[in-house]
């Protein structure tokens, strides 16, 4: 991958929270026009990586470049201009609870584009139609299910026609129909509009079906990368364990604890 090809370029990033190292020399690149997946067990810093890419957090060492600009050094107005080119789908949707579904989707347009009301209305309805919620335009976020809220948030993320779309765990808590729709939507947004997509997820099956390139993170570093087929052929234990979803392997399922039987035999309160 050439440097010019990379929309997001994360180089040798070190990041620690409260003395705990989340990343220790992370290197990741997201190619223009591709769907790149970032996978890894819970707690490997996938969401932290998104925060670094969006300039919400700053790495202690290393560089995060988006569209060639070092996001940590951008002044706020320029960072905001960059964010207008990037859509982010939050894990929980993060809809504005005092606005209706329609107004939530219209929000970025009202803030950044001076559009006549009929044009704005048509744009919002088109995006809501794409996620199948045109009929829910007048509902409030409190009246939506978790899956519906995520789909509204996706409509809001694409309403400004961003060049890059970042999805933070887009499949969590979705029913099979909604999940299928979202997978197809991510693919069609990527194929038809050429939107660069970054998907953070641990749904191996869905990711394998759509990602062009995947990174597998573990313990603050990339432990494997390549196309889904390449990852499936990878022989490293950590990759095999993650791809097949088994509890035994280098990634411990249990949080560090004293011996199970010893603890059960100890009197309560000791």
């Amino acid at each position, binding site marked *: 991958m050439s440097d010019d090809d990379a929309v997001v370029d994360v180089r040798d990033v070190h990041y620690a929270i409260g003395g705990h190292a989340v990343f220790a020399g992370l290197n990741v690149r997201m190619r223009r026009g591709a769907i790149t997946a970032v996978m890894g067990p819970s707690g490997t810093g996938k969401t932290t990586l998104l925060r670094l890419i*969006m300039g*919400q957090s700053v790495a202690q060492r290393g560089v995060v470049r988006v569209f060639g600009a070092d996001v940590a050094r951008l002044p*706020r107005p320029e960072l*905001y*201009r960059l*964010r*207008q080119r*990037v859509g*982010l789908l*939050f894990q*929980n949707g*993060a*809809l*504005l*609870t005092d606005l209706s579904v329609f107004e939530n989707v219209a*929000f*970025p347009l009202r*803030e*950044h584009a001076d559009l006549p009301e009929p044009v704005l209305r048509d744009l919002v309805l088109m995006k809501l139609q794409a996620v199948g919620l045109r009929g829910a335009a007048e509902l409030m976020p409190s009246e939506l299910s978790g899956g519906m809220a995520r789909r509204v948030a996706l409509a*809001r993320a694409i309403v400004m026609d961003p060049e890059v779309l970042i999805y933070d765990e887009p499949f969590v808590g979705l029913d099979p129909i909604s999940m299928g729709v979202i997978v197809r939507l991510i693919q069609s947004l990527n194929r038809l509009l050429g939107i660069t997509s970054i998907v953070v997820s641990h749904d191996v099956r869905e990711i394998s079906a759509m990602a062009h390139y995947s990174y597998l993170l573990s313990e603050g570093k990339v432990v494997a990368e390549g196309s889904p087929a390449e990852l499936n052929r990878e022989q490293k234990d950590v990759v095999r364990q993650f791809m097949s979803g088994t509890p035994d392997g280098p990634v411990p399922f249990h949080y560090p604890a004293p011996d199970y039987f010893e603890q059960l035999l100890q009197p309560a309160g000791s």
Partner: protein
Amino acid sequence: MALDALAKLGSVALFLIRVLGQCIPALARPRLVIAQIYNAGARSLVIIMLCGLFVGMVLGLQGYQLLERFGSESALGVVAALGLIKELGPVLTALLFAGRAGTSLCSEIGLMGATDQLAAMEMMAVDPVRHVVAPRFLGGFIAVPLLTAIFNCVGIYGAQLVGVTMMGIQPGTFWSQVQGAVGLRDVNEGVIKSLVFGTACSLLAVYEGYHAEPTAAGVGLATTRTVVTSAVLVLLLDYVLTAAFL
């Protein structure tokens, strides 16, 4: 401890500068500010008017009892009007505002933070200080002096209700005493106090909400801190301003 307090003071001051910087852009969207004046002001009207009425009535009773000892009960209007305009109106309105609207502002912003709504705005390149904080701050800043004026009017009416209707003071005497004793300087003192208190209470509410830990307990704690700090600060500022106006 002292260093922590100093650091917090500095943090509040920096936040005030940031909020003030966003007030003019926020005023460019008057719809948001008007909605907040309605939320913080109009929705506090019932409690403000009710409390104003009872405070005025108590002032009427106590004032009448006291003045009667010196045979000067006709001066009840002066005592009630000056007491309300210069002191009780601004202070009690600010305390009621902190309890009724300050808590609501703080918890609303705190919950927006806890549910990633503020982060979502940041990611959509919308400054949450401009869109969420500044309109709420302005709403409180504008609402408190208006609420104070209403509190004062209802309070004086309450004192008149007791003095004239119950105790038999001549209405003409009551109102002419009020008109004669209350000068522009007294009104100015009340207005300045209510502006300062409105700024302090609104700032503390939005500051605590914006910096609340994004958990249920964190938002609860921030709401409690808003009321306690507002109450102490209002009384402290009241002393400073009263001394300055002497």
